[in-house]
């Protein structure tokens, strides 16, 4: 079989770093293979991608050893632009790779550089835009598109170059669940149809496993697993240990093995339904499915006044985009709320009203009883802290200490008080020893933490965090959420915007779902997550175990389990014949 990629003993250490980013990588990819590469952050996935189009060694400085052959060309001997005609590389962050003033120009850009005749370019552009459904944005600035559309545009621009090998670094990082499923489907069917070789770096195993030929798991710069997805799921335990998010149904079966060692590990929801129905049938499980919400003690809602209240809130941006339509919402002290919804559903617009960054076009917003139109953001920020999605927009000081002092100083607090608060937050978040560092020399994860810490020194009662887990692996995402849970237990009200349905399920006690600027669901997490239809209408999906249990309800399994551990408990009970 024809070998498209042959990597022999490749290692690379970025200059300025002491630890190799990848070590002794041995990898052969055959023509037409669709390979998923996964691993926790820092595993070396992006570095591996950079080997393939010559970014390493031609762009990034460092120590490189080993040999990388792409279609028979040694990457050391040819240039990046030569290799790029063979290897189409899609970057992690779509916004950073869009370089033209319109979508159409963007898609044509690569082909133009390679001197493709204009007529042919036009044909390719039309085709790529059609496949990615971007035709209507043709003459718009690509940076004006939503995150998901930008990703589609970046993909279209790679497609128009007609590469033989696609290397896609997290092609769906900015997409909501159903959006990413669609993009992944599109990518894989493209590969199968045209017999392209494809390497996809992704965290989303549930979505990708059914489509790919082969899965490679990396950790600490090395390949630790390499095989067919079916073989890989057998290693669920290992994957969970290194901080990955294996398919929930696989994890459930794996955990059941302690008691039932013969359970096969399912790869997809469908397989899981088959396997578990068989088991439950054999165990003679039957019964009426009683939602957990009904048996559980309902959470006491404080009878006090809501701390944040919106009344018939509309927001229309200049230019006429209606972002919020008639939103009535009450938020109480001590709640842990997840606001979910697809890209562009108005989540960020909504929370910006809570600290006065945006004022209602129509309707009212009251924060601690004060109409937000009568006060300033600075005033509201004493009680409502808002942490932005991207820490790089927030950090603006020369040292970590100054960054932490920035908020309290703006509030004109006395020096001792500022000192107390900084020390306090440093202790909680563990910034000891980093206080004199420049914030921009910290890692992305640390910067994200610092951004939160710099809000915490203002000691707000309400903390709003916008997409705290985007671009982070499952483990880091969970660590952040654990931290918010701790804050919540100390009495802070937490509002999290997210499209990670699993994390929301695990941590939030109340979920608000937005669709096209309207609140379509609002209630305790269990209740909201059992409304499958409404969720799907806005491109969201309940966690895989929830969906599994909904399919198995005739065996008496509750349709509103939220986590794998919960599911494990109920499954054991059902199998035990209780």
């Amino acid at each position, binding site marked *: 079989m024809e070998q498209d990629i042959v990597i022999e003993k490749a290692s690379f250490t970025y200059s300025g770093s002491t630890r190799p980013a990848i070590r002794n990588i041995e990898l052969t990819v055959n023509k037409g293979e669709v390979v998923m590469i996964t691993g926790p952050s820092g595993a070396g996935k992006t570095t591996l991608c950079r080997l393939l189009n010559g*970014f390493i060694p031609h*762009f990034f400085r460092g120590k490189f050893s080993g040999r990388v052959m792409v279609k028979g060309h040694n990457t050391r001997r040819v*240039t*990046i*632009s*030569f290799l*790029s*005609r063979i290897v189409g590389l899609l970057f992690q*962050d779509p*916004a*950073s*790779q*869009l*370089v*033209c*003033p*319109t979508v*159409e*120009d963007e898609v*044509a850009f*690569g*082909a*133009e*550089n*390679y*001197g*493709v005749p*204009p007529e042919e*370019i*036009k044909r390719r552009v039309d085709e790529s835009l059609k496949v990615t459904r971007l035709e209507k944005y043709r*003459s718009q*600035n*690509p*940076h*004006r598109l939503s995150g998901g559309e930008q990703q589609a545009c970046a993909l279209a*621009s790679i497609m128009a*170059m007609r590469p033989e090998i696609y290397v896609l670094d997290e092609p769906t990082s900015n997409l909501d669940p159903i959006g990413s499923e669609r993009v992944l489907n599109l990518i894989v069917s493209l590969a199968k149809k045209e017999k392209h070789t494809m390497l996809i770096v992704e965290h989303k195993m549930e979505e990708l496993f059914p489509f790919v030929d082969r899965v490679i798991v990396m950790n600490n710069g090395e390949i630790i697993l390499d095989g067919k997805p079916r073989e890989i799921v057998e290693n669920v335990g290992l994957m969970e240990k290194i901080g990955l998010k294996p398919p929930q149904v696989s994890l459930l079966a794996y955990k059941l093995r302690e008691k039932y060692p013969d359970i096969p590990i399912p790869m997809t929801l469908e397989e899981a339904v088959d396997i578990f129905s068989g088991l439950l049938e054999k165990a003679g499980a039957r019964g009426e499915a009683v939602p957990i919400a009904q048996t559980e003690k309902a959470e006491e809602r404080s009878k006090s006044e809501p701390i944040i209240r919106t009344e018939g809130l509309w927001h229309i941006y200049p230019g006429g985009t209606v972002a919020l339509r008639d939103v009535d919402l009450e938020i109480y002290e001590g709640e842990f709320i997840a606001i979910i919804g697809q890209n562009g559903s108005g989540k960020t617009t909504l929370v910006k009203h809570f*600290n006065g960054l945006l004022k209602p076009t129509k309707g009212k917003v009251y924060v601690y009883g004060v109409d937000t139109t009568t006060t*300033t*953001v*600075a005033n509201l*920020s*004493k009680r409502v*802290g808002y942490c*932005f999605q*991207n820490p*790089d*927009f*927030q*950090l*603006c*000081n*020369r040292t970590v200490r100054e960054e932490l002092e*920035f*908020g309290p100083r*703006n509030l004109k607090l006395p020096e001792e008080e500022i000192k107390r608060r900084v020390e306090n937050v440093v202790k909680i978040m563990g910034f000891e020893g980093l206080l004199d560092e420049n914030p*921009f020399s910290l890692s992305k994860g640390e910067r994200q933490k610092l951004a939160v810490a*710099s*809000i915490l020194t*203002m000691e707000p009662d309400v903390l709003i965090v916008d997409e705290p887990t985007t671009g982070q692996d499952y483990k880091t995402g969970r660590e952040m959420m654990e931290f918010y849970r701790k804050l919540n237990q100390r009495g802070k009200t937490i509002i999290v915007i997210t499209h990670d349905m699993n994390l929301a399920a695990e941590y939030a006690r109340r979920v608000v779902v937005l669709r096209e600027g309207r609140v379509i669901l609002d209630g305790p997490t269990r209740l909201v997550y059992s409304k499958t239809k409404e969720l799907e209408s806005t491109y969201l999906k309940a966690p895989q175990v929830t969906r599994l249990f909904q399919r198995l309800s005739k065996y008496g399994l509750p349709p509103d389990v939220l986590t794998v551990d919960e599911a494990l408990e109920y499954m054991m009970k059902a199998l035990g014949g209780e």
Partner: protein
Amino acid sequence: MAFEYIPGDTFLHRLDPRAKLAFVATVMILAVGFTDPIWLAAVLLALFMLIRYAKLPWDKVKGFIKGIAPLAALYTIFNIIMPPVKIPEPTILFRFIIPISLDSLVWATGAVIRFLIILTVLRIMLMLTPIRDLVLALVKLGLPAEFGISLSTGFGYLPVLLDENRKIKEAQMSRAFEYEYRNPIKRFKALFTQLLIPSISNSIRRTQDIALAMESKGFSYNPRARTYMHEIRFKTPDYIFLAITVVVLIFGILAGWVYEWADFINLTLPLLKKLITSSAS
């Protein structure tokens, strides 16, 4: 947005960008050569007729004028106080701290119209022509392709920069930072120090990303042999338009420089002086 192309299908939209560039250059030469308010007003009027003809949306034009109004006002005042031309025998109208002459008022009126003409013609050009075509025109006129592409990338990133600045400002306001100082110096300082640090570090980081992205799409493969999806070609209407432009240019040079018909001391000023003396007597 000051660089927004507004799609349309008029004669002006379809013109070759090089012909449009020649037109812009001509109008600018006229604006510099003329100093008389009446002549200049005629040029501005012609430009507004073009806006009408190309069916460009009025609210965009209005927004644009509103945007430059403060600058225009400042420019007018400056020209009244210190007209950069020598006025031999000024007719003093009244005193407001310094003596204000009829001559300097007429000069300043002309100056502000010139200011409007230059900005408006650029704006019309940008509304009528996609950046891509402008860049292509410049490349055809001899600009190296690398520069051309860099230029268009720069334009492409403008909305990103604006958006980013808004986000940075919002993030800082969320930490009780006040931008709304009454005192313009304080406000300027606040904007500068707090906005600059994150913007610059983001830009530095972005520079590498852009370089990577362009390289991975073959930017340096062979810029000379690069093709363009949309070719531009000079057609008959372009030649006709160019011919008319050249005639206007020659006329403008005659009026502005050779015979000085369009000089403010030759038309508006004597006209007004006559008016004043006749009404006084």
